[in-house]
Every structure is written in C-alpha cells, then in structure tokens.
C-alpha cells in the first residue's frame, strides 16, 4: 500500500501564538509537528506493518507543505517511523487559505502518484492545531475526486476497501469506501509511538524529496494570498483572561458560589 500522511508544522500551543504580517498569518517561529497528525502517522505505520512493512513494497510518505522550517515536521515524522518524506515549499505558497492549500496538496499527491504507483490512501489528523478548520480533508477529497472518511476512530483496510468507525453527533457509524480515499483520524484511534534512538539515527538516512510549485505543475497565481478565496482583514489579540476572585472553601463556598451566580444573573 502507498500511504501519504499529511503532516503540518504548527506553532506550539503551549506557548503564546501570534498573528503577524500583511496577510494576517500565523507566526511559525516556534513550531512543531501538529500533535493531531501523530495519530494519522501511527495509523499509517500500523497499516503498513500489518502488510509486511517496506520489504513488502509498502510506503508511508510524510508530506508537509510550508516554508523552510516545515521540513522539521517531515524530519520528526521520519524519526517516528515514516519511510520517506516530501516537503513542498515555495515562496508563492505563503498565506494560502484552505482552498489554495488543498489545491497544492492535491497536485503534490498527483505528483507522488506519477511514478506508476498511485497513492492508495491519504491520512490526516482531525484538524490542525493552528487553523483548526478541518476543511483540508474534505477539500482535498473533492479535488482528487476521492471518497472522504473523516473523524475515524478505527480503521481497517482489506480488498481495496476501507472500513471505519466514527462518532457523528447523535449517532455512531460504520462507514465504507473504496480506495483511493482521504481519511482523517481522531485522537481516539491509537496511541502514537515516540521516536527512539534507533529511529532518530535511521531517519538521517531516509530521503526527503523537495518539491516546488513548478515540480507539481501549479502556477503561483493559484496559491498563496493571490490564489486564496478568503482574506483575513484584521486580527486583534484578545486581552488574556485574567484571574477573578479566588476563595478557599471554609464550609460555605457552595453558598457563596450561588451568591456569585445570582449577582451575575446566571440563575
């Protein structure tokens, strides 16, 4: 099986995150592999291992799109266990919205399929931890004309068909689709592995292909701020929430709480 895992380089949510510049884009200086993508990577590795791993011709390719630093998300994925990596980078991509991003990623996936071995499965996290729109899996599926299965909390592949369980509002569902497909997975699906020393050493020998827009046949006008269909006109930092009144329970804190709620007209 040939599996592409989308891995995004995102600002670390443990620190303050900032929006800067003329396009109101996120500052990516302190960035890491989006933690929700680790579940997709783990799912890919398990599927490939069940099928005999690299020796049996399986591929797990970590694909990231983003500026030079984004290659770190690919490197981390290789350390965790991805077999090879692809880094799509081009100055013209800066500021791409979901529509432009999905266009570039779809072209990159077609490029990765063009060696005669088409991609069977594209795996993603349930959302990035920065934009959090969850639009990419659906938009990518629409562009590639693949079925999409989103928010999978379990995944099985057999005989060219994928079967997944998902929670959907009032229902639990089992869904089925033909490969090739785009699948996003939740953090319920598995326990991602950590890179170990062996993995870190092995990663140094793995290949990362660098792609530009020219390589994937996309024109600069189709992506970036120019190719985006939405603009962020303004972004204002919200004043951080400040701590309010803090009391220690002396036996009547429940009553004081109700007084507080009454004063706030919340009863």
């Amino acid at each position, binding site marked *: 099986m040939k599996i592409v895992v989308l891995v995004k380089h995102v600002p670390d949510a443990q620190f303050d995150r900032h929006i800067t510049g003329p396009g109101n884009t996120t500052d990516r200086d302190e960035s890491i592999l989006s933690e929700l993508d680790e579940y997709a990577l783990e799912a890919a590795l398990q599927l490939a291992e069940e099928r005999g791993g690299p020796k049996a011709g399986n591929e797990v390719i970590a694909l990231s799109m983003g500026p030079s630093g984004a290659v770190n998300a690919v490197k981390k994925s290789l350390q965790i266990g991805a077999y090879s990596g692809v880094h799509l980078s081009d100055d013209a991509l800066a500021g791409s919205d979901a529509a432009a991003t999905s266009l570039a990623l779809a072209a990159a996936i077609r490029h990765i399929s063009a060696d005669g071995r088409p991609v069977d499965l594209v795996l993603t996290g349930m959302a990035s931890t920065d934009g959090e729109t*969850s639009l990419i899996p659906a938009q990518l599926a629409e562009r590639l004309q693949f079925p999409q299965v989103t928010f999978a909390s379990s995944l099985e592949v057999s005989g060219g068909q994928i079967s997944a369980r998902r929670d959907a509002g009032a229902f639990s569902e089992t869904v089925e689709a033909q490969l090739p497909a785009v699948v996003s997975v939740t953090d319920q699906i598995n326990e991602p592995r950590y890179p170990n020393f062996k993995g870190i050493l092995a990663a140094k020998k793995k290949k990362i292909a660098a792609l530009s827009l020219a390589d994937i046949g996309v024109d600069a006008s189709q992506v970036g701020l120019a190719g985006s269909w939405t603009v962020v006109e303004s972004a204002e930092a919200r004043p951080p929430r400040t701590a309010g009144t803090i009391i220690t329970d002396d036996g009547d804190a429940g009553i004081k709480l109700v007084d507080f709620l009454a004063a706030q007209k919340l009863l």
Partner: protein
Amino acid sequence: MANALVFIDNPGAALKKSSLELLTIARSLGETAVAFTGELNDDVAATLGAYGATTVYQPSVDDLDNYLVGPKAAYLAAAVAASGATAVLVDNSPEGKEIAGRLGIKLNAGVITDVVGVEADGTAHKSVLAGSYNTTAKATTPVTILSVKANNVEPAPAGAATAPATATVEVPAEGLANSARIAARTEKPVSGRPDLSEARIVVAGGRGVDGDFGPVEELADALGAAVGASRAATDAGWIGHDAQVGQTGVTVSPQLYISAGISGAIQQKAGMQTSKVIVAINKDAESPVFEIADYGIIGDLFKVLPQATAEIQKRKG
C-alpha cells in the same frame, strides 16, 4: 433571487435553535431561501415561513443520509445555483464544515468556519488560536460560505411571516459516486439535558470526580445545564466521549462554564475559554484553571457542588 441560502439537514419534528439562529442571520443578508433535507412537516414549514424563508428547496432523492457528505454538498451546490444565493450558511458541526468545504471547491467559493458574527456585507467574525485572537475575514469570491457557531444571535422571527414556495432540486448523480457509504448507524442514548455545543450553561467534571459524575449531574440539572467532561474523565470511561470539551472534543461558548476537578490543561482550555463566565472548583490552588476563572473555589468538589445544588433548589423554592 435569494441572497442567502440556509442549509437545514434533517431537523425532524422541530427546528433546532441553531437553525433558527442561521435563519435570523440570513435575513440580515437579504432574501432568504432554505435548502432542506428530510421530511418537511407542517410545523417546520410554518416555522420556516415565520422566519422569513421565501423558498424551501428539497432534494430529488431521499437517500442522502446513506453517504458521507459528498451528495449533500452536490445537492447544496445545485440549490445555490437554483436560488442564485451569494451567501450560504451552514451549522458549525463537523459535518456542516465538511459540506461547506466541499461546496467551496465545487463553487470556487471561499469558506469561513467557526463564525461567531456576520455583517450585512458578508464579513465574518471569528476567534482563532484557541480564543486568543479575534479576526474578521471575508470571501473574495462571488459566493461566500459560512459555517456559524451556535449561541451568537438571539433567534427572532421575521416581522411578517411568509408562505414559502417549495421547489425540488435535482441532485447530480456524480454526487453519489466517490462517496463513503454508511454501512451501519446506531443512535446514542439521549440524556434529556441540553445539547452540549448549544447549552447556555455547562457543568464539567474531570479526573477529580474520581468516577462519580453524580454531583456534577445534579448541579447541571438544578441549573438546566449540559454536562461536559475533560479527556481524563472520558478516557477513564466515566462518561461518554461525546461529553469531552476541548481541542479534540466539543468547543463550547456558554454564558457560564463550571469546571469541577479539572486541572485546566491547554487542550481543555482551548474548548472553553470563550465562555462568558468561568467558575472553577479545584482542591489544588496551583491548578492552571484558576488563571482564567472569574470565580475560583479552592476546595473539594464533593462538598462544594452538593451544597450549591441544595442552595439553588432552596432559593427556587
């Protein structure tokens, strides 16, 4: 020609509050049409009229629910063409956002998700990076697609009710191809409490409840609130995963969020920090949740919650 098209998916016997909110926002954008799926019963049709819908579109096929979003997006694209609408409003559920996403590609239209406010010219307000920035965004395309969070406008019927026309929209066959099929579906048990994502008040419990959600549920019932939980509590199996609030759970933005026995990890805060008022009860004065609480109680939730519940019941008489 409609200006705004509201997607209403299978409401059953009555429209959800979030749908009434979408209809209210749509009217501020101009003439409103509805793309409807499922059984359109008389009460629902009357409510659509009361909220000013001029046309109600229905799909030519009735098995859209057997597939994941692809056919619904195809139907909605056809309804946009039929109505001539330039703004499409869908709810902000995971499914709503995916339909919006696919529709955007079909129509070459910009999509903005997690919207909390819409101006008459289609400019949308949303908060990003776990509530740390307020932004305004706009589609630069002829059609704008917005997925709108619940609880940001008061639903209000139109000044004068309309009798909406109904029309059938042909669902393109290719909408069914290349879509995942739903092989089995089981309904989850319903609690009778308000829906978590829409509730005005949420009472949430974490690892500190130590397996016993009783005090959390009793306070929630006294307040007419929904029950939420941290991932530690859902992972422990004390309550269903549906109750999880946070980055990988439900995002809530209620008037009041009461957090009991929850430490306030960044992934939990991400799901609730836009709540109007935050109350935290935790034994540990060092818990990060106290950094964002409007009212914090350092104490044992097993003492504080039952006392508050009893006091509320007493005052209600």
